[in-house]
């Protein structure tokens, strides 16, 4: 009978695939095996003199069975055990406090002063009252964490997902938070996420916790992926899913991903990713209830991922459009820029050549060496000055033309930036017979913006102002403090805009300029940049009189002074 029992247990151990069941069987088998030597205690009954040490094995049997019950749910006594542990802990604590206080007050302090018993009783009661709630919570938590790891709070999981994870628009953050949250809240050994790369049509491991898969890439036609795509159903090793016989190629992938459950992530029936969940720390199986929670999580995750991808793409397109617009604007500037670069070069060249030709043509004959030295140093001085002039404009231009990678806020002086931008557009305006008037408060506090983005904004508005004017005309640039902001006002005496045009100026691709003169993205990008830098842009316009743009940027110093 005994042997038969052992044999059945052993056979089941070999067959059983569910880790929890395996563990239960393993501990039962071991416990019974350990218990066998306990039978030696019966030997004295048959007259053989022998010290009955068998009880130690019996003790081991009880301990092992108890461990299996608690740790591997050998029997369904979890609630009982949990309550008991908490209760025992609380009783111990209460008794501990009372005896400790009694000991300290009656035995230790009594040597020095007589402490009435009622004082120590009240003290004990006060300490217990203060500690009780916190101690109970801690004990419940501790038993949950150390003895029963299977329970996770579905509400907490869903709340965290809808409130924090799904709203992430940064794809990287989204996938990382997903695996972190699932691993933590469901108490998993591992979790990973595969997403399709739309260019290579391969599923790439984009986030993982608890596995070292490195750079894993799965072809979309391989069996694991094909299975998920065609069945639209999860793959798993537990519960009902565990009864399905998956092809070996599929289960091998599961092993590689250390996953016991893989859920397809689909958008409009199209597989875009796979959410893989590893073994629970409690060795428990994934149940039908788990699946009921996780399937909608995977579905919403697919939507969140797709949103994040769209936002990423949109940002990329917008950055490209902004750069295109900038280059287009620079193209229309070339006359002024050319003037500012070619003139200095022409001067340097003419001065040097004139000296050499004078020498060749004998014009320098008879000059004193002092005369020659004076002329030479005059030429060199002119050359240096003109080289600096040309260098300054090329530097400004190349700084301006560079794409802005990461906007960084820094303290920026408005008067300085206005001067820099006027250096770029000023020549064009001058050549077009447009006067620029500056009325700038010299004591303006600095504002916190991305310097080059601010230049781009000023540049665009000044350029538009210049183009709106039929020469001659005037552009007035004013800057002063306005409440807690620094306000920049750029007005032109140009043609102005009717209200219906004014409503559309920030629309992308809206332009009133001739083809080739504007992309229609200038003010669209200007407004985005202003808002990204925590500023506001407003406009007023009267047909025939001109247009005024107001730019307001918060100045931290001003806000600080008020507070």
């Amino acid at each position, binding site marked *: 009978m005994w042997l038969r029992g052992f044999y059945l247990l052993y056979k089941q151990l070999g067959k059983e695939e569910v880790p929890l069941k395996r563990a239960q069987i393993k501990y039962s088998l071991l416990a019974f095996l350990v218990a066998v030597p306990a039978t030696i205690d019966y030997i004295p009954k048959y007259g053989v003199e022998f010290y009955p040490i068998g009880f130690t094995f019996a003790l081991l049997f009880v301990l092992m069975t108890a461990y299996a019950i608690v740790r591997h749910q050998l029997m369904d006594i979890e609630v009982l055990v949990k309550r008991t542990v908490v209760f025992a802990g609380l009783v111990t604590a209460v008794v501990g406090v009372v005896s400790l206080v009694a000991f300290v007050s009656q035995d230790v302090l009594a040597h020095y002063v007589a402490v009435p018993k009622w004082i120590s009783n009240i003290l004990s009661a006060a300490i217990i009252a203060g500690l009780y709630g916190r101690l109970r919570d801690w004990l419940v938590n501790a038993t949950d964490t150390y003895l029963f790891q299977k329970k996770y709070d579905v509400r907490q999981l869903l709340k965290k997902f809808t409130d924090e994870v799904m709203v992430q628009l940064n794809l990287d953050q989204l996938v990382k938070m997903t695996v972190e949250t699932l691993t933590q809240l469901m108490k998993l050994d591992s979790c990973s996420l595969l997403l399709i790369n739309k260019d290579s049509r391969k599923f790439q491991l984009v986030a993982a916790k608890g596995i070292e898969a490195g750079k894993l890439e799965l072809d979309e036609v391989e069996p694991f992926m094909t299975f998920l795509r065609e069945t639209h159903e999860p793959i798993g090793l537990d519960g009902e899913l565990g009864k399905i016989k998956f092809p070996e190629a599929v289960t091998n992938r599961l092993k590689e991903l250390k996953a016991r459950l893989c859920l397809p992530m689909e958008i409009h029936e199209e597989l875009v990713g796979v959410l893989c969940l590893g073994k629970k720390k409690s060795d428990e199986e994934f149940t039908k209830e788990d699946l009921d929670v996780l399937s909608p999580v995977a579905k919403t995750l697919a939507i969140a991922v797709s949103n994040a991808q769209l936002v990423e793409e949109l940002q990329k397109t917008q950055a490209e459009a902004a750069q295109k617009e900038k280059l287009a604007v620079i193209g229309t500037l070339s*006359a002024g820029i050319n003037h500012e670069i*070619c*003139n200095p*070069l*022409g001067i340097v*060249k*003419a001065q040097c050549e*004139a000296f050499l*030709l*004078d020498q060749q043509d004998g014009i320098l004959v008879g000059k004193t060496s002092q005369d020659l030295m004076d002329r030479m140093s005059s030429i060199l001085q002119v050359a240096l000055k003109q080289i600096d002039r040309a260098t300054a404009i090329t530097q400004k231009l190349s700084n301006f033309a560079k794409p802005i990678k990461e906007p960084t806020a820094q303290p920026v002086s408005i008067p300085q930036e206005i001067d820099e931008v006027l250096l770029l557009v000023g020549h064009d305006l001058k050549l077009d017979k447009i006067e620029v008037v500056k009325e700038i408060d010299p004591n303006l506090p600095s504002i916190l913006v991305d310097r080059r983005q601010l230049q781009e904004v000023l540049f665009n508005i000044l350029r538009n102002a210049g183009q709106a004017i039929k020469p001659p005309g005037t552009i007035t640039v004013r800057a002063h403090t306005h409440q807690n902001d620094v306000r920049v006002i750029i007005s032109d005496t140009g043609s102005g805009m009717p209200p219906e045009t004014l409503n559309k100026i920030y629309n992308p691709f809206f332009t009133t300029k001739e083809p080739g003169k504007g992309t229609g993205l200038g003010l669209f990008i200007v407004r985005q940049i202003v808002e990204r830098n925590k500023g506001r842009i407003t406009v007023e316009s009267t047909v025939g009189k001109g247009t005024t743009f107001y730019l307001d940027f918060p100045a931290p110093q001003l806000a600080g002074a008020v507070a």
Partner: protein
Amino acid sequence: MANPTMVAIDDEREFTRTIDQFFSARGFTVHVAMTGTSGLELVMYHKPDVVLVDLKLPGMDGDEVLQAIKKDYPATKVIVITAYNDGGKTRDRLLALGAFAHFDKPISSLRDLFATVQKAVGAFPPATP
């Protein structure tokens, strides 16, 4: 024959100074102006043989100066200097308007400019037969 006379108009002071020095040293009488309007006054006053004018000038620009000179003093040769490079479109337009020659900025060589100016002056019929 008196020294040939030149009026140079450019808003770059250093440039007109160089032209002044260079042509003065080679027997020209040079008058310089920084704007089209003052340049035209010099032309009216000195009636030069040749005028060097920058195309882009604040106020009245090279185009207008050229047309005014051609209207009132058709014998005066006008050489236009531009910082534009638009594939010869501006050049053709200026030549059609009566410019004697056209130079890009920076001027390829003062030697070339001098040769062209001399040609302009030489093509001018001698004052006394």
